[in-house]
């Protein structure tokens, strides 16, 4: 916090003017975060990346910090939503585009890699911080690159729920009610799972995270995607709504679940969502390990799963 404050009066801030820093500061106060350790790494990374002139080094780090703040703010916006009503698609699209833009820029100047490494290193279950997995799909050009999950620190909302990263990604058992890392799920805003028949590879932990999102797994590997880099966001919830009974899945399989992702994505963070009929599903399904359920013929590819696990665990 203090690091950021020192930039307040001295720097010409590239995006948004001086109010940006103030707003970032207040954002931080509200959301109770910005781990100092990570921030120093940012600064260091920024310093290393830029030339030696102290003023421009400061400027660059300041810009990086701002950009990072904007990214985090955007991710929070995508996560938090009015749980009762369908969120505004236009707003979600605009925020997601902003996230993509930041991510592209950060990838270009190499700070994306640095950031995710730093965050991976700083994660621990004891951390009060919430970590959000972000999976970047490399562009078509980088086909050789594997899909890497990145994690970015995100902030808890005023919600009292604490979301904790569970290292044992795949398994969710009744003994560990705090969630797992959903890993490679879905696109940031996850507005819709359009074609459930597409195979989804990185299925590992799927449903638990966005409990209500029963059928879709947004995961797509790069070979599926025709697009350039996509940013995925996933959300963990402390007491996840368990995935519904596969039998019920079948029941609803041909239903157009257009907003399921949006729904679960953006409402999953809230505790005991007042999701009327879905409570029924909750009570019916067990609290057991996530059943890889989707209304398609998708089944997790365990090889992919292992691979992702490896990357996340950092082996």
């Amino acid at each position: 916090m203090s690091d950021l404050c020192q930039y307040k009066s001295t720097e010409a801030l590239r995006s948004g003017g001086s109010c940006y820093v103030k707003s970032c500061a207040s954002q931080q106060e509200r959301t109770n975060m910005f781990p100092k350790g990570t921030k120093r790494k940012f600064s260091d990374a920024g310093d290393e990346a830029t030339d030696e002139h102290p003023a421009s080094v400061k400027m660059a780090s300041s810009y990086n910090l701002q950009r990072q703040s904007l990214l985090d703010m955007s991710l929070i916006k995508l996560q938090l939503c009015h749980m009762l009503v369908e969120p505004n698609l236009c707003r979600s699209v605009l925020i997601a585009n902003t996230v993509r833009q930041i991510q592209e820029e950060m990838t270009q100047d190499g700070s994306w890699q640095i950031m995710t490494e730093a965050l991976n290193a700083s994660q621990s279950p004891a951390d009060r911080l919430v970590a959000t997995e972000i999976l970047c799909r490399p562009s078509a050009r980088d086909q050789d690159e594997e899909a890497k999950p990145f994690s970015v620190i995100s902030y808890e909302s005023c919600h009292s729920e604490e979301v904790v990263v569970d290292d044992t990604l795949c398994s969710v058992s009744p003994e560990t009610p705090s969630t797992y890392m959903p890993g490679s799920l879905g696109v940031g805003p996850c507005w819709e799972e359009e074609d459930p028949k597409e195979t989804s590879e990185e299925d590992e932990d799927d449903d638990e995270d966005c409990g209500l999102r029963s059928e879709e797994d947004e995961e797509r590997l790069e070979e599926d995607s025709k697009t350039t880099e996509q940013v995925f966001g996933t959300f963990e919830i402390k007491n996840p709504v368990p995935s519904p009974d596969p039998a019920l899945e079948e029941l609803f399989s041909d239903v157009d679940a257009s907003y399921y992702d949006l729904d679960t994505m953006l409402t999953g963070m809230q505790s005991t969502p007042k999701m009327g009929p879905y409570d029924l599903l909750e009570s019916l399904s067990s609290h057991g390990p996530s059943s890889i359920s989707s209304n398609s013929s998708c089944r997790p590819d365990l090889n992919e799963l292992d691979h992702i696990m490896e990357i996340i665990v950092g082996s």
Partner: protein
Amino acid sequence: MGEDADTQNINHSFLRDYVTEADVITTAEFSQTGDLLATGDKGGRVVIFQREPESKTESCGQGEYNVYSTFQSHEPDFDYLKSLEIEEKINKIRWIPQHNAARFLLSTNDKTIKLWRVSERDKRPEGYNLKDEGGKVKDPSTVTSLQVPVLKSTDLMVEVSPRRVFANGHTYHVNSISINSDCETYLSADDLRINLWHLGITDRSFNIVDIKPANMEELTEVITAAEFHPQHCNLFIYSSSKGTLRLCDMRASALCDQHSKLFEEPADPGNRSFFSEIVSSVSDVRFSHSGHYLLTRDYLTVKVWDLNMERGPIQTYQVHDYLRSKLCSLYENDCIFDKFECSWNSTDSVIMTGAYNNFFRMFDRETGRDVTLVASRESGKARAVLKTRRVRAGGKRRKDHVTVDSLDFTKKILHTAWHPTDNIIAIAAANNLYIFQDKATSGMHRD
């Protein structure tokens, strides 16, 4: 118009006493003749105001708007499939051009469009032979003579009844409806699709635009507004979140995914920031009355486009450029996503749009002058003259000047309407509706 031209005479303002969220006005629309003004609110209600006929005894001879009818248009609903509520908030109201004594309007919430019939009853028949005055059936044997029932005047009753419900046409939130000039069809637009309906048919609609990508993860652009051309029944325009406008011709193909014209202003590469795209998102698009021009509103500007020139607007007006340095704060508090509407005056020479702090702005296209006015309780007194305001970026406080930092971003004028023929405007500020009329002798010309 000018800073010294405090020439707006407020005839009347309607201040609702309630401050509940449900009373926040979400749309306002004059009928084609301007004698009726319909407003919708967050609680799903529609309130129709009627202009009183001009009284010769009044000094300024202008009719006031009084409440004509109030009805509940939409109720809160629940989508059981997605476990989400469907708000009853009225997103748009559009009047159907009048054909007979009854009036018709379309009102829509996020999912369902309804056609309402508004009619008056001020006479009732009296003098039945077989029924007595109380309505009880008479014993036929007591009837000794015949009479012809006569229509007698009664107090005016306004009856509103739903005639059509156009449901299940939209997966996403409906943001616009527009009646075609043929008066038989209308379009409804949601975030990704535009449907064409016939006013008489509720179980079918044609999808004429679909921008939903096969892979939803590739979604980067949504439809933000749509409108039919005022004269050409085959043309309509729709705007997107990326700041583009697409003119489509329904004669070209059944599915108008291919635009006939694409209006887009090239982005200024020197001015790019992370917020460039968001502030370029068009929140409202309106054809001019003449049908030759388009008016669009994005976050910071209003732009006038010539239908014949696609490469850029012919005029750009800064609504509140002082916010450009505050975009990050506005992004944080979500204000950057506010959707402001815009309006033309009857002669297409003045455009109007709302802003923050209960300010609204008018731009005279001919003289290039602009004015900032405020809709507030002070200006709400009858016959009070609107004061103009100026916003300063900083510095010492000055009379009639407001600093940017003191702007109240919770007080936003999103919805405005301009009378089709006269200089009367309706301004919705939260749960208050202000109706301002122009003095006949003011600088704003009446035609």
